Every structure is written in structure tokens, then in C-alpha cells.
């Protein structure tokens, strides 16, 4: 059976920082991660369309973990909140959020957890069984009097049990605000960190959405089953850049038998 698109999964790195001084990047935050809250954190939740609470409802009674929520409230203030889940009963946050920036549990999900915008509202993300949450990139990354360039890291993982993704390529396919470039990690399965998110990773070339990138030395071997390729993301904020609430899209493509 061919590789399914649902088997090519994006994950964040284990160091999901919210400042410009902490070590960033590192290994993949999939189920192999050591820390419980890193066992499966992905990008790609849908942002809130209006200010609302965030709610969590599991299919399993055993989901009583604590979820750490990051977001901005109506005033614009960055806010965190810890919420103890109540299994199959929908749990509603105390705060109302103008935007959500991330949420991850202190243990992995026992059941499938639906994350909604407001009580009984629209589903914005689903935490799969065995994972912990989702997060945005570049949390709390304000512009300044001069240009500020920051780096963050994600991975694409081929979770198929046996098949290689051949002719694998990375592409930036959407960047509406034109602030993003991407660079392929120099090796597969890497765990490279940077001193802080304003430090460029060594040896990585960043290109815009006009360039497709292969994966290091894999023109004939592809991304093997179980392997992951790191993708460094560069955010370029010009001097005194207005606020952004935007998205970008990174694509992994290839061929499969």
C-alpha cells in the first residue's frame, strides 16, 4: 500500500521558545521525545476567528492531564493558563483569547481530544491519541527599531512502516505576509539546536517560495520510513513592522510505490 498523505506528519522541535535568549530548535517533538509534554506537538491548528475561550473534550475518561495554554487575551497581553481536563466532559478555559499560540499536556492523550473555539464551538484542532498538543511558531516575536530575524524549527516525518518517500522535496507554498523563508536541515534525523532564536543555524541556506529544495543527498534514496527531515524557518521582521496574525505553509512532496 502506498504512503498516505496522513503518514507524512509535521512536528515541532522540542525547544519551542517564547523569548530571544533560550536555546531553540533541537530534536523532533514526536512520541520519541523524552519529556512528556514534547511527545507529539505539531504545528497546524486553525487560529481563532474571534475572541473566545478554548475548550478540550476527550473520547476517553482517562484524559485528566493538565494542559498548558499560551495565548493573547483581548488586551493583547500574552497569557498562560493551566487547565485540568475532565475526560469526556468538555473543559472550558477561564480566559477568553484573542488568539491561541499553543497548548500541550503534561501527559499524552489517552483518547482523541477535540479542541474547540468556545464551548460547543467550532473544532480548531484534534489532538491524536498518544500526542500532547500543538503550537504556533515565533511566539512573542515583536519587531524592533531595526530588522529582527528569528529562526524556528519543525520536522517532516515519514511515519509509514516500510516505504520510502522518493524524490522528496520541501517547498514553501504560501507566505501571505512575505516574512518567511525556509532552509532544509543539512542531515536527516538531526537534533541541532541554536543558542537562541536570533542565531542562524550553521550551514543552512534559506530560500523563499520560488525555490524547491531536495533533502540532503537523497535524490535516489528519499526519506526513509521512520525518518524525519528538519526544516528551519526564518522570520524576517523589518524595522517597526506592524503586527502580524498570519500563517505560512510548508509542503513535503514526493513519490511512492
Amino acid at each position, binding site marked *: 500500500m502506498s504512503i498516505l498523505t496522513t503518514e507524512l506528519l509535521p512536528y515541532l522541535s522540542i525547544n519551542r521558545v517564547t523569548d530571544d535568549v533560550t536555546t531553540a530548535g533541537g530534536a523532533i517533538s514526536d512520541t520519541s521525545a523524552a519529556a512528556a509534554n514534547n511527545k507529539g506537538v505539531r504545528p497546524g491548528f486553525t487560529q481563532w476567528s474571534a475572541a473566545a475561550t478554548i475548550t478540550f473534550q476527550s473520547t476517553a475518561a482517562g484524559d485528566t492531564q493538565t494542559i498548558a495554554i499560551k495565548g493573547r487575551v483581548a488586551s493583547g497581553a500574552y497569557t498562560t493558563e493551566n487547565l485540568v481536563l475532565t475526560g469526556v466532559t468538555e473543559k472550558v478555559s477561564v480566559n477568553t483569547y484573542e488568539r491561541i499560540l499553543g497548548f500541550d499536556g503534561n501527559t499524552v492523550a489517552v483518547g482523541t481530544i477535540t479542541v474547540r473555539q468556545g464551548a460547543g464551538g467550532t473544532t480548531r484542532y484534534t489532538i491524536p491519541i498518544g500526542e500532547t498538543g500543538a503550537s504556533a511558531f515565533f511566539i512573542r516575536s515583536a519587531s524592533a527599531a531595526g530588522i529582527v530575524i528569528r529562526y524556528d524549527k519543525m520536522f517532516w516525518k515519514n511515519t509509514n512502516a516500510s516505504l520510502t518517500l522518493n524524490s522528496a522535496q520541501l517547498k514553501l507554498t504560501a507566505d501571505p505576509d512575505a516574512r518567511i523563508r525556509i532552509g532544509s536541515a543539512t542531515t536527516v534525523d538531526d537534533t541541532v539546536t541554536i543558542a537562541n532564536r536570533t542565531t*542562524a543555524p550553521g550551514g543552512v541556506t534559506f530560500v523563499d517560495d520560488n525555490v524547491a529544495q531536495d533533502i540532503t543527498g537523497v535524490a535516489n534514496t528519499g526519506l526513509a520510513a521512520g525518518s524525519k527531515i528538519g526544516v528551519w524557518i526564518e522570520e524576517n521582521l523589518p524595522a517597526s513592522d506592524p503586527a502580524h496574525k498570519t500563517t505560512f505553509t510548508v509542503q513535503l512532496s514526493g513519490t511512492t510505490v
Partner: protein
Amino acid sequence: MTPDEIRAQVDEIMARVYANGTVTREEAEFVVRAVGRWCKGPKKPGVEAEYAKMREAVGVVGGQEKGYDLALMDSILREPCGADFNDVIVQFPFDGADHLEPCPKCDQMISFRSPIFPVSE
């Protein structure tokens, strides 16, 4: 070289970079070229609005479940090119500088940041 040999060579060079060692210009170019970089081609005039609408319909991740394919969407948006953009990247110092350069084949402007390597003289 086989892909495995390329990977091993890249790993060896990058190990020195991460250990604050130096590499030669040729070794740095080898790492750059180990990742193929291909110009996707210029955007066709007049289709950006159509592409943006389709892109929005795809959603946050994937899109196949909705009948969209991001790879095919690129072919709708762009004229094919396929030039090796590494030929442009290696013309500049490996100093982390920002560049905006034309594709040598289709002339569309491409922005990139040069990689940083501690190149020995």
C-alpha cells in the same frame, strides 16, 4: 558518490562546523549542493488571486481530503523553470548575508540567505 556517501560526507563536514572548527570553501559548497535547489518558475500573470483562493480552500494542513493537491497547484500558478539555484548561491561568500538575485534561466527574482560556514583561508 552514492546518496549514503554524500550523507556521510555532509555529516563529517557539519560535525566540524558544530564543533567550532573550520571547513574549506570546497567542503562548504559540497554541503550546499547536497541539497538540490530548483527554481519553481515565475508566477503566471493574472492567476495569483485564483491561487490564493484555492490555497485558502485547502486549509491548514494537506488538502487532499478536500480534493486539492498543493503540488498540482504550483503547476497551475507557475511557468516551469527547474534551474539549479545552487549555481547562484555558491557565487557568494558563506557569511549569512541576505541576497535578492535573478534566476539564471527565467530571471524571476529570488531572495535567499547565504549559509554560514567557518571557511578557512
